[in-house]
């Protein structure tokens, strides 16, 4: 079956995120009220052919651990598109 798997990679708490800070400053200078913080990450969409959705999520998890995220500075979450449940978590 074809599965669309979403991977979101975010900087770990405690890791300097100057992009997030710059984007936050941009929102402030737009006059937008109420935004307290911005952290900037990346969203990957993987189209995976696998026997089951669970197998596809496993493949996406391996891809995330090996390449899509750098575990020294990033965490990741993996979920099948349009699903409520998050299948695998990095250390948020």
């Amino acid at each position, binding site marked *: 079956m074809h599965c669309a798997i979403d991977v979101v990679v975010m900087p770990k708490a*405690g*890791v*300097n995120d*100057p*992009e997030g800070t*710059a984007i936050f400053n941009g929102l402030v200078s737009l006059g937008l009220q109420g935004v307290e913080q911005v952290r900037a990450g990346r969203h990957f969409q993987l189209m995976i052919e696998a026997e089951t959705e669970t197998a596809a999520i496993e493949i996406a998890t391996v891809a995330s651990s090996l*390449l*899509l995220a*750098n575990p*020294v*500075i990033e965490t990741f979450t993996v979920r099948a598109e349009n699903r409520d449940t998050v299948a695998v978590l990095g250390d948020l």
Partner: protein
Amino acid sequence: MPSGVAVVTFPGSNGDHDALHALASDIGIRVALVDYRCGELDGYEAVVIPGGFSYGDYLRCGAIARFTPVMNAVQQFASRGGPVLGICNGFQILTETKLLPGALLRNQALQFVCDWIHVRVEQTTSPWTSDLLKGDVLRLPIAHGDGAYFADKQTIEELEHGGQVVFRYCKSDGSAGASSNPNGAVSDIAGITNKAGNVLGMMPHPERATDLLTGGNDGARLLNHLFHLLQVPA
């Protein structure tokens, strides 16, 4: 049979020919360009991973270069104690490959910095720095947008106590100062080695400072060491 220094090159590397020229012409040792698709480094006595933008810095700097056949060979070469020098993008690739701990983050000020800086030599027990003196100051150029060295607290403590911090950003007189850190690197770290000391990664470019014609030759003080490492003359 290959010999001398292997300068590896990836799609997007642009410091490869700087390294070749500096080593061959200014230092005077045998060098060869080794393509990223080459899966072995038999016969070479040292490896240089040059600066540039391998794979366009896509995903993360050095993230994709890590999986090339040549980096597989570099890992084996390093595990046998072979000397490996990663310059700028080369340093980034070494951290992605986990031959060195930590990571290089986007510069704190979000600006690409192209400038001359000073680094202080912090240890001389590594084969790479055994010709230098602790406290020596080298004036070297940098050119990077993602050079802020980062590691978690425990790793930083291990690096400091283990003598793995080799270069630290400093003022021209060697003293420390926040203003001398060009990118927000933790503890002003500009270069580190692995535990064994044979793998050195640094953000500044010694190969761009081997000839006074380009503004300085302090880089030669580091690269000259390859003379002693290599058995085969130019």
